[in-house]
């Protein structure tokens, strides 16, 4: 493509920058939507039925019995789709109509996003989102640097630097040059790799290679850069953002799969019944129908009873189609939608500080929330707040940060007043510290304390921003570093700004400028970083901070005693789960520095082994250090995390932590939030570096947990040996105690390979808590996939960062924490909550309710349809298997749609077996969901049996009663229409009483819906059987007067009462006896709850959580390498900002 040449570029047929996420337009909505809907099996089935019904020879039902429900169902779905799509249209329009500045013929013109084309040069301003994938040409910053925030793309909130190639950065904002820029770019075809781009820019006969550092991606936001110009490379659907999204897999719940299986069963059952009835018909026609031809001749095309039987098969197929309820899927969707709204509406999952309520982003997974067995959690930002707090420190052998009461005893931090930082105008008001002695030492001018904080304020790679005078905002690489610098700032050593050569620090109100001589950068191997500065007093100082194990070896021998004291303090800190760092300094004489500096620059310039040489040079400098002290940073857990995890554990949910973090920190957090407990029987660490050791470690662990599981005779082993074919499930195995397991990424890579997979899974599933550390995002997903593949369980992944996206997508349920790390996880999640502790409410309250409601709904729904449909089966034996319906056609039309839909909806939207308080207090109540006890194939068979029984009662009681029976005025009542009315009314009463029995939570709405539906039935009845309607369409409404004649029969009501009692009594008896004979834990708990609700004098006490602090140590460094170099190179410095700042100081 060529810049500034729309004509040429248009020949390549690039798409324009319009994005289209909507699926339909006004014109294609109807056909497209209908087409999509009929792709669903159920809808297609009903369409086929409809066509069958149009054949008059076999159709026992009028066409409208199927058409009306189908229309209603289709239109509900269509309306829902339409609303969704209108929203998408609005979003698209909004995005497409944003304006952007385009360079056109030497002038800047404003245009809409959607009009941007490949090859255009556009101008982007600060805080503007990037329009398309753009090749950076030039910017307001030196060297063509541009800062961007990529939160929308990868979730990282820190700024990233992009740099243009030098030729183009010279173009600056010269419009003439820009518009005459005619470079040609050859690049790869659009793909979805965010961090890859290769291309060649040909400009003025020269070739320049382009990589992803030169590319601004759509979705990024320009920061800290006044303006920049870019050449549009990919537009609209070609952009990396669009290539990356929209391919999310559609998640289906276990219930959906079960439903599909059950629908298949029903089909088979249906086919079987039709077959039986068809054979019956054949026999009947042969034995009786043939001779009955005087009165009812066969139709011309029926040559024998066999032909007639074949036709009857299809007739019964139509009649019995209500076994597969047409409204099932729609009702399920409505229920899920309703329960999703409850999640959105829950005030107890609303996080006020961020003003975010919980959000159900998918409305199809609700009941699965009530079945979760495994939770895979990210650590940073999910369990922890990802906020580091400078908590304690040890300076020159004195420990600070503990609160003391008057007697000198240590007290809980919360009881002590916060330190008052009012003496320091530049203090960060959010910072809090609880030990006044440190401030006093500070004010007294303790040399060591001053030096300590000076080193903290100098030795870092933080950038500062001062938008308003006195309000500093630090941009830190890692939150640890930010915490340290902030601490120094509050105690009076304010890091104010930096340039490539200087650092300005306000020391106790006094501004000093230190010359930055060198930054000895952090790396994972070195585990430390240092800065060399020249103080205003012209001394050369080196400040170093790093992991204690490393730094200890570099200390000057003279401070050995201090080191021992400090190490003790460090142990104390680590015991509390704090992240520690050691701080040291060294005074360097000028000559030594000069010599070193020379060596350093040589090393930097050397071409071979540059890394090694540089680290040698560094080592030369970082020695004989004088120990200053140590810092302790608290990695703050989110509110209520330990309590939540304890509750979830009680609900037998296993929680795994999958983190990219180091083992030490991960284990630390695991202890802090009760995933590991001190009283566990053992914790295994798997860290083998090849598959043999990993296998041994895993087997060892398993041997300890369950020795017999390694024997050949173990049922699982024999099972695995006998059934090697792929889709199989590993059953639960019970270990002999509480165990934890830690596995790191390297070992996991081996363990996830084919032959070790099962080994890993069996071991790991026996553990109560599992920590996987040093995980790549892909591995996180692999672990989840492994679980999904071999275990019949519901998995839930919760995370907040872009690195969790893969696992969120892989798990059955993905939950995004809307927290610190941007939107990526949230955008890919099914549910978004803002705090980890809301998870217990989401699962134990909403999930449980949704699951219970869904199960009750399905049981009842199948039951009522079986009872309804099987009546035809019984009637067949008395009507010559002629596919005569028992009911009025209108009853068939309305039964599912009108008469019984509202009660079951109210049941499944309002029912609560126990209220939220109890479900949180007794997490054990969650257990049935995990094993799917409330609706499974067994329950389905029960529904079927119940339905068969009910239909049997409902058919034979009226039949026997009405047989040869007459009205009290002698007129006969055994006619077909009266019988229909009688049976259908009895059915409706039974079904309504049945749902009344299922409902445990009678709100006003439930009353209205349940009894109202029954009342409504009678109203409709009188309407349908009224003179007016029947006389207008005598052939459609044939039941004239039946309601009036039959409803005043005493037999009618006696029959109804009898049928209801007969249908309900066994159910009541069963429900009463079941907890007596087979008491499940749940029943016991329910009993206790009922006791308590009626005798509220026994307030259940909640055990208070004990926090046992394990003795673990971890080091606070989550840096990336290489930021130091960027600072010293000066590229990231903004001269203007500096000038402005220094100006303000002068005032």
């Amino acid at each position, binding site marked *: 493509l060529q810049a500034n040449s729309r004509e040429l570029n248009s020949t390549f047929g690039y798409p324009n920058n319009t994005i289209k996420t909507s699926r339909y337009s006004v014109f294609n909505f109807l056909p497209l939507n209908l087409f999509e809907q009929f792709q669903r099996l159920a809808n297609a089935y009903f369409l086929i039925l409809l066509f069958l019904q149009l054949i008059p020879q076999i159709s026992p039902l009028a066409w409208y019995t199927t058409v009306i429900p189908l229309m209603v169902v289709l239109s509900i779905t269509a309306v829902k789709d339409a609303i969704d799509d209108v929203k998408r249209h609005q979003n698209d329009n909004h995005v497409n109509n944003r304006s952007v500045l385009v360079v056109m013929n030497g002038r800047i013109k404003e245009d809409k996003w959607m009009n941007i084309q490949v090859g255009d040069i556009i101008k982007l301003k600060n805080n503007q989102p990037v329009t398309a994938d753009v090749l950076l040409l030039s910017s307001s910053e030196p060297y063509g640097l541009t800062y961007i925030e990529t939160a929308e793309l990868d979730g990282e909130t820190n700024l990233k630097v992009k740099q243009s190639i030098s030729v183009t950065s010279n173009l600056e904002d010269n419009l003439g040059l820009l518009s005459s820029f005619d470079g040609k770019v050859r690049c790869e075809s659009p793909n979805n790799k965010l961090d890859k781009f290769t291309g060649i820019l040909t400009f003025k006969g020269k070739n320049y290679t382009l990589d992803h550092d030169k590319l601004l991606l759509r979705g990024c936001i320009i920061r800290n850069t006044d303006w920049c110009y870019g050449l549009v490379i990919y537009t609209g659907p070609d952009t990396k953002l669009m290539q990356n999204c929209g391919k999310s897999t559609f998640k289906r719940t276990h219930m959906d799969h079960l439903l599909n299986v059950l629908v298949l069963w029903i089909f088979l059952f249906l086919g079987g019944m039709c077959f039986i009835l068809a054979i019956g018909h054949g026999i009947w026609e042969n034995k009786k129908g043939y001779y009955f031809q005087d009165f*009812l001749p066969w139709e011309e095309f029926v040559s024998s009873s066999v032909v007639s039987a074949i036709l009857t098969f299809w007739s019964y197929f139509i009649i019995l189609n209500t076994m597969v309820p047409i409204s099932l899927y729609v009702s399920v969707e409505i229920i899920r939608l309703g329960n999703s709204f409850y999640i959105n509406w829950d005030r107890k999952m609303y996080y006020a500080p961020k*003003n975010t309520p919980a959000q159900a982003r998918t409305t199809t997974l609700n009941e699965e929330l009530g079945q979760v067995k495994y939770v895979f959690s990210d650590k940073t930002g999910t369990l922890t707040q990802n906020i580091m707090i400078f908590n304690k420190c040890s300076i020159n052998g004195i420990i600070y940060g503990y609160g003391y009461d008057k007697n000198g005893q240590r007290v809980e931090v919360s009881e002590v007043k916060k330190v008052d930082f009012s003496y320091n105008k530049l203090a960060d008001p959010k910072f809090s510290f609880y030990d006044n002695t440190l401030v006093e030492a500070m004010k007294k001018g303790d040399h060591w304390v001053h030096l300590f904080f000076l080193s903290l304020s100098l030795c870092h790679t933080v950038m500062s921003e001062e938008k308003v005078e006195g309000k500093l905002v630090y941009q830190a690489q890692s939150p640890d570093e930010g915490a340290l610098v902030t601490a120094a700032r509050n105690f009076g050593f304010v890091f104010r700004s930096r340039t490539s050569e200087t650092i300005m620090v306000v020391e106790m109100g006094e501004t000093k400028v230190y010359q930055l001589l060198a930054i000895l950068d952090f790396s994972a191997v070195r585990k430390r970083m240092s800065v060399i500065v020249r103080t205003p007093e012209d001394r050369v100082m080196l400040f170093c901070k790093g992991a204690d194990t490393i730094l200890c070896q570099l200390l000057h021998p003279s401070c050995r005693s201090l080191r021992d004291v400090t190490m003790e303090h460090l142990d104390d800190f680590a015991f509390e789960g704090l992240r520690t760092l050691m701080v040291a300094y060294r005074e360097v004489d000028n000559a030594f520095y000069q010599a070193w500096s020379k060596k350093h620059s040589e090393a930097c310039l050397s071409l071979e082994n540059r890394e090694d040489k540089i680290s040698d040079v560094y080592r030369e400098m970082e020695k004989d250090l004088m120990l200053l002290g140590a810092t302790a940073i608290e990695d703050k857990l989110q509110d209520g995390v330990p309590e939540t995890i304890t509750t979830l554990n009680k609900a037998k949910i296993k929680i795994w932590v999958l983190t990219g973090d180091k083992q030490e920190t991960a284990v630390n957090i695991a202890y802090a939030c009760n995933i590991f407990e001190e009283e566990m029987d053992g914790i295994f660490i798997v860290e083998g570096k090849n598959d043999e050791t990993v296998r041994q470690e895993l087997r060892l662990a398993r041997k300890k947990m369950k020795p017999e599981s390694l024997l050949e005779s173990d049922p699982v082993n024999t099972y695995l040996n006998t059934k090697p074919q792929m889709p199989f499930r590993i059953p639960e195995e019970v270990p002999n105690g509480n165990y934890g397991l830690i596995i790191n990424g390297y070992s996991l890579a081996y363990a996830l390979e084919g032959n070790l997979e099962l080994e890993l899974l069996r071991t790991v599933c026996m553990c109560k808590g599992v920590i996987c550390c040093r995980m790549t995002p892909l591995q996180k997903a692999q672990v989840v996939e492994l679980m999904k593949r071999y275990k019949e369980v519901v998995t839930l992944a919760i995370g907040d960062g872009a690195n969790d996206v893969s696992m969120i997508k892989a798990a059955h349920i993905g939950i995004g924490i809307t927290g610190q790390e941007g939107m990526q996880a949230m955008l890919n999640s099914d549910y978004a909550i803002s705090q980890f502790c809301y998870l217990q409410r989401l699962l134990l309250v909403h999930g449980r309710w949704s699951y219970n409601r869904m199960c009750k709904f399905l049981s009842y729904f199948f039951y009522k349809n079986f009872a309804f449909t099987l009546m035809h089966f019984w009637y067949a034996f008395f009507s010559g298997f002629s596919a005569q319906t028992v009911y009025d056609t209108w009853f068939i039309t309305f039964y599912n749609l009108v008469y019984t839909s509202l009660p079951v909806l109210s049941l499944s939207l309002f029912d609560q077996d126990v209220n939220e308080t109890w479900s949180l207090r007794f997490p054990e109540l969650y257990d049935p969901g995990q094993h799917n006890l409330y609706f499974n194939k067994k329950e389905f068979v029960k529904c079927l049996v119940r339905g068969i029984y009910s239909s049997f009662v409902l058919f034979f009681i009226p039949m026997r009663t009405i047989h040869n029976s007459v009205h009290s005025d002698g007129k006969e009542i055994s006619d077909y229409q009266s019988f229909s009315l009688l049976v259908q009314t009895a059915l409706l009463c039974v079904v309504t009483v049945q749902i009344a029995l299922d409902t445990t939570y009678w709100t006003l709405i439930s009353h209205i819906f349940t009894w109202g539906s029954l009342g409504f039935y009678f109203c409709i009845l009188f309407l349908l059987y009224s003179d007016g309607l029947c006389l207008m369409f*005598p052939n459609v409404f044939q039941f004239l007067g039946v309601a009036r004649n039959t409803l005043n029969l*005493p037999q009618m009501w006696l029959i109804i009462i009898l049928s209801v009692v007969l249908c309900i009594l066994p159910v009541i008896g069963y429900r009463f006896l079941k907890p007596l004979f087979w008491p499940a834990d749940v029943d016991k708990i329910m009993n206790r709850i009922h006791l308590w609700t009626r005798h509220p004098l026994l307030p259940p006490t909640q055990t208070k959580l004990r926090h046992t602090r394990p003795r673990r140590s971890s080091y606070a460094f989550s840096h990336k390498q290489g930021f130091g170099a960027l600072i010293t190179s000066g590229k990231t410095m903004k001269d203007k900002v500096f000038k402005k700042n220094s100006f303000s100081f002068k005032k």
Partner: protein
Amino acid sequence: MAMNYNAKDEVDGGPQCPPGGTAKNRRPDNTAFKQQRLPAWQPILTAGTVLPTFFIIGLIFIPIGIGIFVTSNNIREIEIDYTGTDPSSPCNKCLSPNATPCYCTINFTLEQSFEGNVFMYYGLSNFYQNHRRYVKSRDDSQLNGDSSALLNPSKECEPYRRNEDKPIAPCGAIANSMFNDTLELFLVGNESYPTPIPLKKKGIAWWTDKNVKFRNPSGGESLKERFKGTTKPVNWVKPVYMLDSEPDNNGFINEDFIVWMRTAALPTFRKLYRLIERKSDLHPTLPAGRYYLNITYNYPVHSFDGRKRMILSTISWMGGKNPFLGIAYIAIGSISFLLGVVLLVINHKYRNSSNTADITI
């Protein structure tokens, strides 16, 4: 049932809103509906509610059942099969199809007198009036007097829609197969010749059927003119306008026809044929004694193994003789009562045996 009203007044435990509030507060509304805290009645199945239910059902059902049973037993009913399959039967001669018209007489004796109104039914067995193709083989528009449907009956009536290019009125298999035996009842008293019992043929159909659903076509003066252009059903002897001499019981509104058109639900059924009205309080309507039934035997049922019966029955507040409902009530009541006892024992035993005292009464 144990009831506890659960109007929760729990204090909202969510985090507090920042003072002042943001411009757009997304905090969900605190309504009982949205927070799922609607006041509700929560019935619980406990022994205290279940056991009494069983006992009460038992106690209520048994008396009802006995009442119904006694009522049903007090009804007098006599049923006479006159199909003639038995060679000794007087009607046996009518089985052969060429004996038309065929008359036969059956003697029977009433052991007890029938008091109050007595109803005379004809009953058919093995007659599938509920067969799908039979049930739909009618045109309600035509029967309602619609003139266009009269001349152009619905397709549902096939093959009895047209005959010899003329539309059949009334069309369809139901009408075509109308019962056409004539039954007459005589009391053999002390006198030398038998007294005919007066049989009333009006008032046997539903009011709605007679007055709303069935109507003769409008038009011409005489009924015959109104049915002009139509032909009689194949099996009928007389056209529809000659069913009866009285004008308000002729044509489509002939009550025998209407009764027949109300198809039966089951293959064995009875239909009201005639009323025998009570004469006075002093004399029983049908005193005990010998009677004979004169039958004009037209209706063939032998070919499909059908049966024809004549039934005489008195009536109670709940219709004719049918002991089923009473027996069912008694049975269910007893079972319920027994179950209650069994459950009580089980509950008692289990509650005592289980050491956890958390099973409630």
